[in-house]
């Protein structure tokens, strides 16, 4: 696929997943290299701006549509889907909180216009995966600031054009009093601290880096991260990641289905025994898919026009959103695992069309991206007062 693809943004993303990402997925995985072919195709089609409202220079895709793009890309290559997802989580979150700030609106427009790829810097040495605490702080002097962050994991840090980073608002601020900071190309340097040689999601290229940045004071978003996190960053993370994991699960089931079909064609005399397992798997995939898209529709409804803070900041919503992540991240690994006995040795081999090894390894990252036990701890706290009475 070299010429530009026809169709809606969703159709374009799905075509890139099918025709480009898939082609390079095994090489990306083997070499733990960035999926540059697929991401460049995404960039060339203007899809790096897909999620941003039209008035800010984007394509104005709905959240369910962006989830669908993540799914389609991940069906071809999990790492491609995850890079696309993380970029849109950051960019759409920034756009969602741009109202009332000419500066932020201008930066979002510039990102869309220049087709920049944005990476995420939340995890930090000393706080691990706790999104709502930072060690590093924004140091402001006049109308400029500087920042140094010891980041444990920055996916495609070396390939990104800019970074969206969490930090304490001020050197005297408490760990949870955080701001979101936009670092443009040229604003920062990265010192890679070690390798990214992992079980799966190898193509996300996510090693630890020391980030040194500086910029204009208006690159610090005005809205505090305490509001940005529950209103946009966390919902978008769970939804778009959910789309990626759904893509991985869908690919595993589709390999299992192809295997069973091949068996059935050899002996068209009623379904083979593996057909029962397939039936089970298809039911689980359907409920997984329904969950992800229903939650995406609900969030989209609470986002359009004006952010419905009352709904998004309720305990009931926080619980259900955490449950989406918990169910999606465990479902993906369970579904790929359950596809293995269906495909048998052909699933176990790395070089068969029914191979499940890469998908299985990729699927294990889901429960670590914000450790599920952290979410269970949060839910345990919320369940002390939640009644499930509505």
């Amino acid at each position, binding site marked *: 696929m070299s010429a530009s693809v026809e169709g809606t943004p969703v159709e374009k993303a799905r075509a890139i997943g099918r025709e480009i990402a898939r082609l390079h997925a095994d090489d990306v995985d083997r070499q733990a290299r960035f999926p540059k072919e697929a991401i460049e195709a995404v960039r060339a089609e203007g899809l790096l701006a897909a999620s941003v409202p039209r008035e800010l220079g984007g394509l104005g895709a709905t959240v369910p549509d962006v989830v669908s793009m993540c799914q389609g890309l991940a069906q071809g290559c999990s790492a491609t889907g995850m890079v696309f997802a993380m970029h849109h989580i950051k960019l759409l979150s920034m756009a969602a909180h741009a109202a009332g700030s000419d500066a932020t609106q201008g930066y979002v427009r510039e990102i869309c216009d220049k087709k920049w790829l944005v990476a995420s810097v939340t995890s930090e040495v000393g706080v691990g995966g706790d999104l709502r605490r930072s060690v590093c702080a924004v140091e402001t002097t006049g109308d400029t600031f500087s920042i140094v962050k010891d980041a444990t994991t920055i996916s495609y840090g070396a390939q990104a054009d800019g970074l969206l980073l969490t930090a304490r608002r001020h050197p005297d601020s408490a760990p*949870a009093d955080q701001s979101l900071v936009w670092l443009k190309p040229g604003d920062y340097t990265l010192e890679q601290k070690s390798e990214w040689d992992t079980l799966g999601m190898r193509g996300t290229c996510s090693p630890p880096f020391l980030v040194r940045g500086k910029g204009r004071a208006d690159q610090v978003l005005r809205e505090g991260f305490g509001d940005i996190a529950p209103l946009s960053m966390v919902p978008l993370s769970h939804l778009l990641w959910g789309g990626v994991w759904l893509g991985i699960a869908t690919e595993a089931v589709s390999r299992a289905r192809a295997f069973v079909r091949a068996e059935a064609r050899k002996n068209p005399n009623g379904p083979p025994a593996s057909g029962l397992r397939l039936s089970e798997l298809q039911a689980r995939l359907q409920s997984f898919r329904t969950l992800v898209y229903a939650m995406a529709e609900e969030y989209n409804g609470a986002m359009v026009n004006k952010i419905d803070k009352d709904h998004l900041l309720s305990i009931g919503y926080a619980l259900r959103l955490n449950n989406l992540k918990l169910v999606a991240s465990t479902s993906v690994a369970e579904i790929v695992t359950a596809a293995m006995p269906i495909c048998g040795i052909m699933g176990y081999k790395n070089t068969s069309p029914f191979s499940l090894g890469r998908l299985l390894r990729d699927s294990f990252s889901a429960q670590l991206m914000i450790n599920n036990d952290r979410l269970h701890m949060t839910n345990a706290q919320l369940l002390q007062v939640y009644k499930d009475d509505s």
Partner: protein
Amino acid sequence: MQNQIRTILQQHGKLGTDATSLAEDADLYQAGMTSHASVNVMLALEGAFDVEFPDRMLKRSVFESIRNIHAALSELTGGR
């Protein structure tokens, strides 16, 4: 009721300021109450006033200020 609310906020709200002298409409989240701390405040209020906050009340706006908490509790106790 106000004083009891203030005492509970003082004990469980993890506020950066003194809850006993805070303005009635001051934003408690701005004053440093985390969502984790707010759940502990809800639990303590349910215990102290022998009420149960229904889910429709379990949102940030209801626990955002002493005045709002007071209003929610008054609704649940029916002024008892």
